[in-house]
């Protein structure tokens, strides 16, 4: 342990898929260019989507979250992976609950993310039912340009990811937080 207290910036409380740390920092432009976020169906039953991100600071992940649409339901799984697909954490299958609410899962141990490492946030859902998810219909081309991948039959998410070329639209609102409660 250092003899000096750290003054490193701990990062924001929430880091999410539409924010500047995701998708190469360009997704704000993608979101603005492809319509307004709204409740929507997940693209395909049991599909996983993986969105890339990196942070310029150490970041302690205490919880992960996704956003339920206006008619929450089905089952979700959320996880973190390295760029090569090696798994860091994957939640079990979790029933969607709370219309238009963020829903959090808490890993058994906190996860320390290193600065300037490319990670992937994975999110999968069991059903393509209207309004169970909340997202933005970014085009497939834009997603490919931003390093988004997908995987079939992935509820719950696998220990290690097998990335496939993305063919479904959507950047859904999900993310990580260093808060243990309060939100």
């Amino acid at each position, binding site marked *: 342990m250092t003899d000096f207290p750290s*003054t*490193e*910036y*701990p*990062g*924001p*409380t*929430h880091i*999410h898929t*539409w*924010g*500047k740390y995701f998708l190469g920092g360009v*997704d*704000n*432009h993608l*979101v*603005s260019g492809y319509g*307004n*976020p*709204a409740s929507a169906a997940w693209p395909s039953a049991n599909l996983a989507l993986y969105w890339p991100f990196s942070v310029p600071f150490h970041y302690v992940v205490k919880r992960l*979250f996704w*956003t*339920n649409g206006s008619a929450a339901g089905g089952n979700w799984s959320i996880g973190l992976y390295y760029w090569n697909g090696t798994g860091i954490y994957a939640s079990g299958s979790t029933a969607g609950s709370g219309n*238009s*609410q*963020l829903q959090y899962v808490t890993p058994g141990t906190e996860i320390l993310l290193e600065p300037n490492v490319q990670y992937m946030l994975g999110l999968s859902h069991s059903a393509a039912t209207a309004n169970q998810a*909340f997202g*933005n219909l970014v085009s497939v081309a834009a997603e490919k340009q931003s390093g988004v991948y997908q995987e079939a039959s992935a509820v719950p998410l696998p220990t290690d990811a097998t990335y496939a070329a993305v063919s479904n639209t959507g950047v859904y*609102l999900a*993310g990580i937080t260093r808060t243990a*409660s*309060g*939100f």
Partner: protein
Amino acid sequence: MAGILGSYTDTAIGDWITGVSGTMAGVAPGQNIAYYMPIEVTRRVTIYQAVVRNGATVAGNFDVGLYDEWLNRLVSSGSTAQSGTNSSQSVNITDTVLDRGTYYAGFASDSTTATYRIQSSPGLNGATAQACGCMSQASAFPLPDPAVFAGGVPANLNFPHVCFLFWSTLE
């Protein structure tokens, strides 16, 4: 050097809100509702002035302040009469040094009719606001110390445009 920490810049909820095609308009934020918007500070700065943007209807008082990550109020203007339609209103605050970290800009008005410049963002709901780390609190004028986050998504979404002027020196 000098600069601005703002609730709608890329250091704060602008991280998302300015990314969608919203419009800025004068909106009544609601009486005695406190809004808390996270701001990232990546280097030591000293804030010395707070700024709000008034709409076309001026009435009552506002309170603007800054909280640390643990929701302790560091500085605030105290109850201040709103003045000047469709203009920015600056309030001197006690010089306050901020180290790197996450802070919350706080704002509340005691008027039912006063309007402030607020971004109307398509898709903004309680969930998206919470994903940006934002929160609201009822019965909170003047700004309380500490702030209280009750959990769940914010009940109110009229997050106003608030900023702080700062100066800093090389570290």
